[in-house]
């Protein structure tokens, strides 16, 4: 499994993602944002961080990086693309996922563990989870409040695009369990084709018991298993 970890100026979870891919036996490679091709990769990941300082708007400048055209092309061909945190924001800005991530309802940066419920197991990133499984995974963001226009929101729920939802420890969708005010407690969703996943929580930070949780491990093992069962996309 050859995985491109795209690095923008200001990415800061690139290394963590690299190590997580390595941990499950994948072959990660850093790809600098000025590259124009992703040929030969089996999957593409956009890490968290503050690309370009998030100075204009989270992800707004990164989306016009040269590499993003290649990412879009990779996605169009059905290759699995995962955007985490800032990577999710970039995918939304680039139009590869619907909606946008705005400032947390608390107006504060939120860094803590949250519980997620797995809503779909038929994506390349969630096949190893059980439907309805509760995961414990850290979040760390200031702009993770998912929103979209009413039409889009209707479509998202109608087509079942939500993959992860913020829940309490018992799996209930509650307001208290929602760390940022996201609409319908959305923590992560896929495009219609199901190959592009964006999520605010950091699965790469939850792959070792020593660090508190292994809830995110399934994202990486699922991808590995899904790729093992299909031809390379690149």
């Amino acid at each position, binding site marked *: 499994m050859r995985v491109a970890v795209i690095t923008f100026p200001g990415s800061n979870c690139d290394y963590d993602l690299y190590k997580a891919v390595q941990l499950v036996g994948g072959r990660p490679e850093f790809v600098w944002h000025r590259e124009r091709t992703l040929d030969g990769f089996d999957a593409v990941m956009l890490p968290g961080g503050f690309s370009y300082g998030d100075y204009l708007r989270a992800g707004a400048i990164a989306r016009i990086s040269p590499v993003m055209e290649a990412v879009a092309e990779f996605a169009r061909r059905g290759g699995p693309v995962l955007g985490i945190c800032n990577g999710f924001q970039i995918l939304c800005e680039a139009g590869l996922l619907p909606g946008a991530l705005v400032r947390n309802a608390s107006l*504060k940066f939120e860094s803590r563990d949250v519980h997620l419920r797995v809503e779909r197991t038929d994506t390349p990133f969630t096949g190893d989870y059980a439907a309805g499984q509760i995961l414990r995974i850290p979040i760390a963001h200031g702009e993770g409040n998912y929103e979209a226009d009413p039409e889009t929101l209707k479509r998202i729920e109608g087509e079942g695009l939500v993959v992860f939802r913020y829940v309490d420890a018992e799996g209930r969708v509650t307001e208290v369990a929602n760390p940022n005010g996201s609409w319908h407690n959305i923590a992560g969703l896929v495009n219609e084709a199901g190959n592009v996943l964006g999520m605010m929580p950091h699965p790469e930070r939850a792959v070792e018991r020593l660090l508190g949780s292994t809830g995110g491990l399934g994202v990486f093992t699922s991808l590995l298993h899904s790729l093992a069962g299909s031809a390379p996309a690149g």
Partner: protein
Amino acid sequence: MSDATTTNPEVRPRPGDPEITPELVAEHGLSPEEYERIVKILGRAPTFTELGVFSAMWSEHCGYKNSKRMLRLLPTDAPWVIQGPGENAGVIDVGEGYALAFKIESHNHPSAVEPYQGAATGVGGILRDIFTMGARPVAVLDSLRFGDLDSPRVRYLFDGVVKGIGDYGNCVGIPNIGGETVFDRGYEGNPIVNAMCLGLMKREELITATASGEGNPLMAVGARTGRDGIHGATFASEELSEDSDEASRPQVQVGDPFTEKLLLEASLELIASGAIVGIQDMGAAGITSSASEMAGRGGSGVELEMSAVPVREEGMTPYEILLSESQERMLVVAKRGREDEVRRILEKWELEAEVIGRVTSDGRFRVLEHGVPVADIPALPLTEGCPTYEREGVESKEIRALRETDLSEHLIPRGDLTPTFLLMMGSPNLASKRWVYHQYDSTVRTNTVVRPGGDAGVIRIRGTKRGVAATTDCNGRYVYLEPRTGAMIAVAEAARNVACVGALPSAITNNLNFGNPEKPHIYYQFREAVLGMADACRVFETPVTGGNVSFYNETDGQAIYPTPVIGMVGVLEDVEKVVRHHFRSPGDAIVLLGTNTDEMGGSEYLYVTAGMVAGAPPRVDLLAERALQQALLDMSAAEVLSSAHDCSQGGLACTLAESALGEGERPLGVEVELDDDLPPVALLFAESQGRVVVSCPLEHLDDVLARAQRYGVPARRIGTVGEPEGTFRVTMRDGSVSCPVAQIAEVFFGALPRIMDVPATAEG
């Protein structure tokens, strides 16, 4: 080394420079005697530019003129110390080929004026101190002090400082693993904002900030130089007044964490490339201090051309360029002929690098403007020749009287003390600081084993079995009431915290926050505190590898509590054996290590119930503390503990409650019985030193007690861990506390959000 009295006839005042008058000298924070010394060093009167340079380099901030003599008394050596004081940061050997760079630094004055930028740039500065040693920053901690939260101004400062620290560290991607936040009217006008950073490197990656090799180019790297922060170092060495807010705002710098992140990556790549000789942050006093200090350490000289410095605005004078404290800039000494390699690395990271001078061999700090010399100063007298003072120190009579206050009436309350206990748990000092650290990314870089909220933060060293623990500690009330004891306690508590997680206390960095040292009672506090710290560091074998002195923390003549913050690091040989502070399993035995007393001086109980800061701080027995640390290390290595938690502010009752609550996800009940012949108030809330509450499975109880005995540490079982959502009960001869643990959780976790999560308004 050139003759210090050589005249250099070439240097002339620039057209338009103000005339050097006694008033101008005084405005630059220099005494008439210091000015005479400058004239003697130069063999002539200084130019305006030179006066500015001396003013910055001889400020307390850069020159340590009031502290140097005392600081020499601190122990700085141990076999594991690789780099002691005098560099950008201290460095110790942490085993398996790795070295740890660490340092703490203050940004008190800027934060008092502009809390967000002041605190943010404090984090930026300390990160640069670490990565210029060749180490990758892996964790930060923040030690904060504010006035009482009933003041809207204090809430504004607190909110701004936390956001500033968070935004900067989060953006660069360095986890925050701990620290402390204290509220006391003693810090009303002068908040304390100290930031500590830890960096890891392979031993051979260490690089120092020296300028050597005649002809090697000096390169300015990173952000451009602007007019911000001019004379920040001098500003940091003055008292604040009511007018400081408005008048001083231009001296506060603005931070750009995105550029910092690029600078970090570029610097580490530069160091790895071997194309450079040395690198230093342009921190306090900007180009002036970085260039002259690198020259001083390298035993060489430097020549700088002002017109080559990339500037943000036109028409900047050499004076302004030399003293600007614009952020995110570094000075690099490249190897001659490898300038292009340096530029290529920086271009990749979208940064600028310009040659602005060269290393010379004549020992001079020479500044040119379009080839015309505007400053020419012997480098060594500039960096090392700052006059140092050992001042008169006399204890304040008022404070001595406070210390001798009779506190016996405060020990009278008996019976059901639950309401008092809940009041304590909701005090901003004892309440959970989740409101603070949930705004800090604590898990980025995926090495954080113990996050903020425990006794010490812990990160693992990837690729080894090892871990590093770090904490910051100081109870300023104790230091105020009795400086020597207070400073010893600060070191002892830091060491206890580190030992609680299972790490061997290894070394400290200190941030000495005091008032105006020219006042005898302040100098007394400083001297006594340094002596106390030196004693404790010697007994614990935790040398001081560097730090920061922040004097003049006064507003309108009122000094802060003397606050020598201790940043301690420790090493875990097997990070899997880490011990956490919260109780783990119902049925576990609760064991108290150490001895209860009725020492109430300087306690949070007095502050909460009587608004008092009085009495003598608790006694501290350094040898007993050392034995306790060793016992804890022995127990954690043997894996017999379920938890360990230091007993400090708030006393035993609050320690038990914190262990019961953990991070609030699964609070456990507590059943404790104390049969000591002491008043219940003392048993619950006295802050007696040398105590730790541990818990262990019943089958390990005898083992734990035996191990304690082996080290001569008093130990006894005082109770049992209860069920989830159970009752918290402490029974004593003459009193008790009893309530559902959920009620404590509500008070403890809710206190700060209830105060802070209302629309904040900035005053004036």
